[in-house]
């Protein structure tokens, strides 16, 4: 079974390791991420101003093109997932906005595409037991804290991804790989998102609260699903260290990197170089590499 795949701008460049590990793991799990031909930018955040039709065009263009290629579209980055899924739902429900968009883009998209996040594919279509079968190196003894962030979960009625206060999908994925999923209260709190551009010190504070809480609850590694969150809680650890002297940095991995380790991929291809804190000492210590 092949899936139309929308990588998104950052996964092409600064988060290449995230994209590459996903493609490799998919092959191991028996399905292929078929990149959507000539895709364009997803428009980043879903426009909250009701009269901002123009901002809906980028995601609509992607949906229309994907619909020509197939019936389901998947993405890895939670920001792309959020804006494409919400636009898809808006086009399905809001008749006159659908007509305006279709007239402008001369397309006839009715919103009937199935938009899935990669984790949803692993759970619903592939199934966690399949991962356990194919797994080469179970991550027993690894205390991993899943960090959901905001874009996957909210708005709750539109994303229909998981429970809005106590999500468990990510925990199931980690436990399927034998790791011990660490629950921590900040797993659904915001990382500061694009504030790292406008007010970097606020993003630092958010990053610190999230990592601090994960460490306090016994996490050895934090697992994320979005390059922007990862930047705010991983790369910002330098700024956090300056402000909070007693802070001990902790490795932050994409969930596909962890999947890659479990599937026994050669760790050179998992792109640990791009992670701010090098996870190798921890992974070697646990005997996963």
């Amino acid at each position, binding site marked *: 079974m092949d899936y139309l795949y929308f990588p998104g701008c950052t996964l092409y460049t600064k988060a290449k390791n995230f994209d590459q590990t996903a493609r490799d793991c998919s092959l191991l799990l028996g399905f292929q991420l078929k990149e959507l031909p000539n895709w364009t930018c997803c428009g980043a*955040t879903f426009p909250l*101003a009701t009269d901002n039709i123009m901002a809906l065009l980028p995601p609509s263009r992607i949906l229309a093109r994907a619909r020509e290629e197939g019936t389901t579209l998947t993405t890895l980055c939670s920001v792309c997932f959020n804006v494409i899924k919400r636009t898809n739902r808006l086009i399905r429900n809001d008749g006159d906005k659908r007509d305006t968009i279709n007239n402008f883009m001369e397309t006839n998209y009715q919103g009937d595409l199935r938009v899935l996040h990669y984790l949803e594919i692993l759970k619903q279509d592939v199934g966690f037991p399949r991962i356990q079968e194919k797994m080469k190196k179970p991550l027993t003894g690894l205390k991993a804290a899943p960090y959901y962030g905001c874009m996957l979960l909210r708005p709750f009625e539109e994303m229909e991804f998981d429970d809005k206060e106590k999500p468990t999908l990510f925990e199931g994925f980690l436990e399927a790989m034998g790791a011990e999923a660490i629950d921590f209260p900040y797993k659904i709190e915001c990382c500061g998102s694009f504030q790292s551009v406008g007010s970097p010190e606020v993003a630092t504070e958010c990053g610190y609260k999230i990592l601090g809480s994960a460490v306090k609850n016994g996490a050895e590694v934090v697992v994320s699903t979005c390059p922007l969150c990862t930047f705010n809680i991983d790369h910002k650890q330098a700024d956090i260290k300056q402000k909070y002297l007693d802070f001990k940095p902790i490795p932050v991995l994409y969930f596909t990197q962890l999947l890659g380790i479990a599937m026994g991929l050669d760790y050179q291809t998992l792109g640990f170089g791009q992670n701010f804190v090098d996870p190798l000492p921890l992974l070697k210590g646990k005997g996963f590499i």
Partner: protein
Amino acid sequence: MKIELTREKVHNEFAKKVELISGQNLFACYQCGNCTAGCPVAFAMEVGPHEVIRYTLLGLEEEALAVNTFWLCASCLQCTSRCPKGIDIARVMDALRMVILRKKDRKDHIHVSEFQEGFLEKVPQIAFISGFRKFLS
């Protein structure tokens, strides 16, 4: 510290514009403060979201637009998901940004030219795209 309330003040143009852009009815807000209580960046805000909504309702345009509240809002929708009256607070914050960014004299909240050296290379593009959408006119 003092406001003079009149009919025009209450149904003022500013509040109507914010209601139009956000599509929300500000009169529905019964000032329970759940949004401010749950906001992850409220610690850095001069006034909480519930209070800037109150300013808007009372027609205090200058004061409402002078605070940093909606510039710090990261649209994480924690407030919207918990509002007992079903008001989409994130949309109201966006609307307040739009009121400034769409003003005739259109001044940006951030200036790309002032970024330090190497900043553009460090930060992932998503941050810039969503950031610029929220901060640039």
